[in-house]
């Protein structure tokens, strides 16, 4: 198979304009005759549904929560980037483009990123018009801050609740279309399969989570905006319900899965406190602007932090990276925390933690200033740990946060299955091997508000659609398969709970396919995952029935998919014999211990195709070319 990314030819600055001009349009009167399905109501799904509804299409939007407003996007804290250059500090579309290509460690497509940077400004305008209460200066203009080590202030925010406010804006636009009758919202419903007829995506099989009933939904195109798969690790900063089922089932129907091993680990999360731990809480990265990270110099030093004298502390980031210090990128900060803990110098009762210390900043700036800057984060920390970060340093540890990998899409956001489009975190498109802070919200909204309305139209205008009913054989066979899977999970009646399997799976992945990876470790992980998966299908227990609200059953189906995805992640990580961004292969590092890319052999997108349960997946490569930003070794020394 060869992959055609459909990147417009010519100068990158004109690519999107050219692509839009070349697209065929759907006659306004014909739009309402097209049925579209959008799965997901996060930033990407809600913005897409609203915008498609506004154009007059007939849209059905699905989510598994009780209301579209609860999608995981709601939890994003820090902010959203745009190239507005309001602070007059040297920002431009080109700089945002440049930083994103470099930040992604040269493993993403230039044309997509350029478009993202271009659209970023329209997103801010659109959200302001919807009433998103972004932070403002006294004079009434929008406020910006710097984020994630960027040298310009390009991040817009609404207190520590940027994701919430952006999502509510998109949700309200969606509800407006529900009112207008263009969008039908179908909550508490899970997509369990994709219906492909004559090579085109023509619908989905969904299960109502309250009644257990299966339904078939037929459409002319299907848009997946189902979020990331970080929960494959069990413990992550994602919402508990976030899952890979929709994209995984699409993968098994023929959509290629790109760069599954590119996952992001966030350095500043509250450490695990016990076995019962159900998720990890992120502390905003902005804390690294004023906090100093350290561990004791000697192994196993159990003294309370205040009793460890200054000369017995190791401010290891400042020591190793004198010019960036505590502000090194996420992947570098995370790996270094792991390294000092592996040496036995970690802090807290589990030894998996490092200090983030504000005492110096408090002495320099006063407690009041620190409270103004980080008050809500300090409160959150105290609420969870019962420790006062104004008095003792915070304890932090890295956690899985975001997945750059996802279904492969071309420039039009279409997967390898015609008529199947993928948006937001669910696709692989814009962040390469590492995502910069505040750019996921930007991408989700860019995809949903400004790209998909054009590209879906082009697809509809250039294809023919045979009349298909819900009773079509392909649709009914997909229902049967989904039903059989549910029946099977209910019938095993083994001895272990779904969560106990999920926790164990997560541990394998975290140990071997987490912050540092080796060929040998990945090999071992693949064996362990397979063995655990076999045990799962013989020994899991799912109480209750399939015809009412059964949360264990929902989880059981998702974890079954996580097993298969976990294996593909390890295969991809093993295959990529280089280190780049969040993918750190211990065999490939510079003498100073930094990630060593291999552009000669690995400057490509790895797109995997499903070939059956026990067959090895097939790798197709999309070569990456860099005409504007030339690959260089990242250095933060």
């Amino acid at each position, binding site marked *: 198979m060869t992959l055609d990314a459909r990147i417009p030819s010519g100068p990158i600055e004109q690519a999107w304009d050219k692509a839009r001009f070349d697209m065929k349009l759907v006659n306004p009167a014909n739009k309402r005759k097209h049925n579209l399905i959008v799965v997901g109501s996060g930033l990407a799904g809600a913005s897409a549904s609203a915008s498609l509804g506004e154009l007059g299409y007939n849209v059905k939007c699905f989510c598994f929560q009780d209301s579209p407003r609860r999608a995981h996007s709601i939890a994003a804290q820090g902010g959203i980037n745009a190239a507005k250059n309001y602070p007059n500090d040297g920002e431009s579309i080109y700089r945002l483009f440049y930083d994103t290509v470099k930040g992604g460690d040269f493993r993403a497509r230039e044309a997509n990123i350029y478009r993202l940077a271009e659209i970023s400004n329209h997103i801010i305008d659109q959200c302001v018009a919807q009433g998103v209460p972004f932070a403002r200066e006294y004079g009434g203009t929008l406020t910006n801050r710097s984020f994630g080590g960027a040298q310009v202030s390009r991040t817009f925010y609404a207190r520590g609740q940027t994701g919430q406010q952006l999502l509510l804006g998109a949700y309200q636009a969606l509800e407006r279309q529900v009112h207008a009758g263009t969008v039908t919202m179908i909550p508490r419903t899970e997509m369990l399969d994709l219906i492909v007829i004559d090579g085109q995506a023509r619908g989905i099989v969904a299960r109502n989570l309250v009644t257990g009933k299966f339904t078939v939904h037929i459409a002319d195109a299907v848009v997946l905006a189902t979020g990331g798969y970080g929960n494959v690790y069990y413990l992550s900063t994602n*919402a508990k319900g976030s899952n890979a089922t929709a994209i995984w089932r699409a993968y098994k129907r023929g959509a290629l899965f790109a760069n599954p091993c590119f996952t992001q680990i966030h350095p500043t999360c509250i450490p695990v406190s016990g076995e019962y731990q159900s998720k990890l809480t992120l502390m905003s990265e902005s804390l690294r602007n004023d906090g100093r990270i350290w561990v004791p110099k000697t192994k196993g030093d159990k003294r309370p932090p205040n009793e460890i004298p200054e000369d017995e502390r190791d401010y290891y980031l400042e020591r190793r990276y004198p010019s960036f210090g505590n502000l090194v990128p996420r992947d570098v900060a995370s790996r270094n925390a792991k390294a000092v803990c592996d040496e036995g110098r970690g802090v807290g009762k589990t030894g998996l933690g490092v200090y983030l210390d504000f005492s110096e900043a408090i002495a320099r700036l006063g407690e009041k200033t620190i409270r103004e800057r980080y008050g809500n984060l300090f409160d959150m920390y105290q609420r969870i740990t*019962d420790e006062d970060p104004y008095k003792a340093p915070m304890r932090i540890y890295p956690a899985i946060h975001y997945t750059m990998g996802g279904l492969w899409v071309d420039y039009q956001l279409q997967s390898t299955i015609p008529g199947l489009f993928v948006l937001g975190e669910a696709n692989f498109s814009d962040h390469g091997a590492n995502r910069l802070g505040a750019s996921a919200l930007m991408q989700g909204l860019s995809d949903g508000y400004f790209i998909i309305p054009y590209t879906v139209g082009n697809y509809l205008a250039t294809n023919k659609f045979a009349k298909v009913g819900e009773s079509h054989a392909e649709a009914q066979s997909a229902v049967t398969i989904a039903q059989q899977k549910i029946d099977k999970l209910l019938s095993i009646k083994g001895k272990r709970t779904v969560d106990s399997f999920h926790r164990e799976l997560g541990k394998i992945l975290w140990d071997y396919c987490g912050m540092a990876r080796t060929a040998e470790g990945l090999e071992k992980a693949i064996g362990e995952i397979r063995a655990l998966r076999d045990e799962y299908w013989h020994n899991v227990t799912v109480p209750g029935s399939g015809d009412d609200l059964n949360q264990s059953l929902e989880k059981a189906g998702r974890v079954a998919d996580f097993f298969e995805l976990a294996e593909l992640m390890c295969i991809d990580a093993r295959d990529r014999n280089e280190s780049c961004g969040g993918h750190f292969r211990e065999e490939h590092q510079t003498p100073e211990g930094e990630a060593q890319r291999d552009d000669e052999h690995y400057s490509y997108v790895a797109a995997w195709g499903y070939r059956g349960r026990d067959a090895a997946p097939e790798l197709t490569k999309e070569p990456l070319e860099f005409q504007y930003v030339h690959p260089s070794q990242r250095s933060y020394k």
Partner: protein
Amino acid sequence: MKLKLKIWRQKNCKEKGKFVQYAVDNVDPEMSMLECLDVLNESLIERDEEPVAFEHDCREGICGSCGFMINGVAHGPERATTVCQLTMRHFKDGDELAIEPWRSVAFPLVKDLVVDRSAFDHIIEAGGYISVSTGNAQDGNTLLIGKDIADKAMDAAACIGCGACVAACPNASAALFTGAKIAHLGALPQGKPERDRRALSMVSQMNMEAFGNCTNIGECTGVCPKEIPLEAIATMNRDYLLASCKKREDIATDISPVIELTAKG
């Protein structure tokens, strides 16, 4: 520590429910209330009993999924805290906690602690937005908005739609939720053109759902995890009254007032 949990169990809205007593012996003070239920549920599943159904997703106090009554208080004893953020260190060894779902006709029970809050979505659908389609926006800095106004809008916009206000209200009124959205959008210049229409349509939708009337008791704001102030309700009533007085013909006016004007303060 050990806790006794008395939990409301009900298979669905048709069958009768009842409290069932469970003992949880290995409660760690650092766990959250939901993690405590996870631990209970794991033990129930191992005994092949159905786990307690409860709604949750973000577990960070922002999605608004979670929520139930603990000893008669919505979201439990801590101020400005959802049950997913409530740590067990606030309870003592041997405590008995009665856990039950939001009780309101407008929120029909789905199962155990899960209720149907779609009435909230209907209220937003009726007019909780600014009508601006994608692509129609001018530059974000064209309309200046003072920091005080932006902050005020943000305070009201912080509502997470959890439903605790309704559950706590003796009348099961949704005035705080509805008022929060009206106050958020009405505070901003972008929201002004539709202010009358928004107040009339959202309030009339609220009245059509099975919520009760607001009599200014104030229980709602006391349990609200985002501390939405009662002022939001006052803003709603003001906008609604003003809009009704204007009797604009382009807006339906066959709506009854939300507030009983003779109510106690």
